[in-house]
């Protein structure tokens, strides 16, 4: 540590005003504050000081993402060996997935941080930490077969049009990671749906097993929901899907970390779950009796376990920037996300990733919800006065 500190101190003069690399100061500052706690204090005005600054918040989310990431890596290997009918140990599964997922993560960080650095140098503001989380969220929402240049393109797109154009971290009205995924979903539909969820790179001496189907649960259940895997399989995540989204259990661990540390809002997570259960039950009640296989008959709790709902509700919907801010607003926001998710899944087979679209939609509406909540509160207080 001392050694690093010495280096930083010795090169610092070059980056300060009048130094040789004055223009690159933001990049240097980002590196310095990433390694060490900054040594300066604000000169004027009163500030709330808290150890829980933006960097710590982001790191907490990263830690909460670790379970889903590890499980996702293991599942990539598991699905691969399953498709070829091979036995593999836990470590083999994990290592296979690790080498498949690592490049995606690296590319996502490199592309997104590259854009951030360029902009911070151009605009002379410090590099913000917002991309730390986005950069890890993007790979976890993608299928493992996604070409790397698409990952890079999506990362650049979401940093540029989702964030920098509005003024950088904290100004984005939509979740950048979801924006990246939505961009890929509409730009390259052939690579984001269909039989792409399992890595089928050839294994010498083995053929793909008979009866292998590349369809995810969200496609299966629109045809006949009885074909879905068992609820426990879906809960633990032994199923095909995007890298990080399959396991509701891993997301649950992440949710606990977020809630205990106070980084994620429990109101949003709970209300999303309630929204799904409520709308699921309503649809079950309305389901036509003469079509016993219709998607409307799906038990409500299945919607919690299928697809990316758990991942979206825990990591995406709770994004403090793009979610609703008021207490009551958070409940409305979450309930509507849940309800829209179920409606889209059941009635629109063309867009199986309903969680993504409903969270983005509610991101757009969040300011309006907040506005109405505040207005209503003012009205109520005025009446009482």
């Amino acid at each position, binding site marked *: 540590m001392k050694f690093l500190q010495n280096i930083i101190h010795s090169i610092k003069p070059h980056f300060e005003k009048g130094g040789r690399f004055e223009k690159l100061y933001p990049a240097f500052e980002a590196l310095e504050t990433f390694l060490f706690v900054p040594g300066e204090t604000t000169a004027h005005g009163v500030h709330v000081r808290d150890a829980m600054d933006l960097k710590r918040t982001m790191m907490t989310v990263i830690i909460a993402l670790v379970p889903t990431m590890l499980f996702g890596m293991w599942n990539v290997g598991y699905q691969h060996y399953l498709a070829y009918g091979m036995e593999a140990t836990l470590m083999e599964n994990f290592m296979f997935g690790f080498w498949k997922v690592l490049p995606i993560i690296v590319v996502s960080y490199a592309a997104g941080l590259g854009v951030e650095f360029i902009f911070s140098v151009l605009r002379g503001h410090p590099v913000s930490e917002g991309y730390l989380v986005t950069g890890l969220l993007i790979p976890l929402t993608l299928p493992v077969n996604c070409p790397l*240049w*698409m990952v890079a393109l999506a990362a650049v797109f979401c940093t540029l049009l989702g964030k920098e154009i509005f003024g950088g971290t904290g100004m984005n009205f939509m979740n950048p990671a979801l924006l990246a995924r939505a*961009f890929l979903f*509409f*730009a390259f539909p052939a690579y984001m749906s269909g039989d792409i969820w399992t890595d089928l790179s050839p294994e010498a001496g083995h053929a793909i097993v008979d009866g292998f189907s590349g369809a995810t649960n969200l496609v299966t259940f629109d045809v006949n929901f009885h074909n879905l895997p068992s609820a426990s399989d879906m809960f633990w995540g032994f199923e095909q899907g995007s890298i990080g989204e399959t396991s509701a259990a891993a997301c649950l661990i992440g949710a606990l970390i977020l809630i205990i540390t106070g980084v994620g809002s429990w109101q949003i997570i709970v209300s999303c779950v309630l929204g799904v259960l409520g709308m699921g039950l309503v649809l079950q009640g309305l389901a036509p009796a003469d079509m016993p296989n219709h998607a409307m008959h799906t038990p409500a709790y299945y919607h919690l376990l299928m697809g990316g709902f758990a991942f979206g509700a825990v990591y995406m919907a709770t994004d403090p920037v793009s979610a609703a801010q008021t207490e009551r607003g958070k409940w409305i926001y979450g309930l509507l996300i849940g309800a829209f998710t179920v409606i889209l899944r059941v009635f629109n087979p063309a867009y199986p990733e309903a969680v993504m679209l409903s969270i983005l939609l509610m991101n757009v509406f969040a300011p309006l919800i907040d506005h109405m909540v505040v207005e209503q509160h003012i009205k109520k207080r005025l009446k009482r006065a």
Partner: protein
Amino acid sequence: MSVESTSAPAVQEKKKEALFSKKNIRTLRDPLDDNNPITVQVLGICSALAVTVQVKPALIMAVGVIFVTAFSNLITSLLRNSIPNRVRIIVQLIIVATLVTIVDQVLKAYMFDVSKKLSVFVGLIITNCIVMGRLEAFALAQKPWPSFLDGVGNGVGYGIILVVVAIFRELFGAGTLMGYHVIPQWAYDHGYVNNGLMVLPPAALFVIGVYIWAQRSWNKKLVNVS
């Protein structure tokens, strides 16, 4: 028709401007950048979304709009003193509709394919906010020649954006420009894929949005225009 009217031309004679005086040049040039109908005034967005999937229809649409804005401005300006104020919108509509019908018939006669692609949007030039906006804001109060220049300027300003957007959308959405393959086959062989989003109308909004962003970054005059 007495002393006044005879003396008036004499006064004008003294002040008569050159055809391309500084003021007239500004009339012509302003709508290209500083006062662009699409990116600054945000008019005519709907057709900019609809006809910019490929460059060729966009070019032809641009030419059509230039023709209509230029000549409707000219005709309205010529008639400006005899148009009763209360029915001016109807008179303008008749002028614009006549010109649009001419454009539509010419397209149908000589470029039937393109005319089918542009479909209803040629007819909708009538309701294009840019055309009516220029008639109301400029041609009704200005002499014919500046009006004509203003019409040409606004038409070209609209056309530039249309073509820029179309270039991006066709290049990335289909890999072609004016129907010719621009992106080489080896790129596809190495895993390049056309971007399906660029074919959808929202892509035009993205491109226009980025254009506005870039324009406001380089053009200092636009910094405080909301």
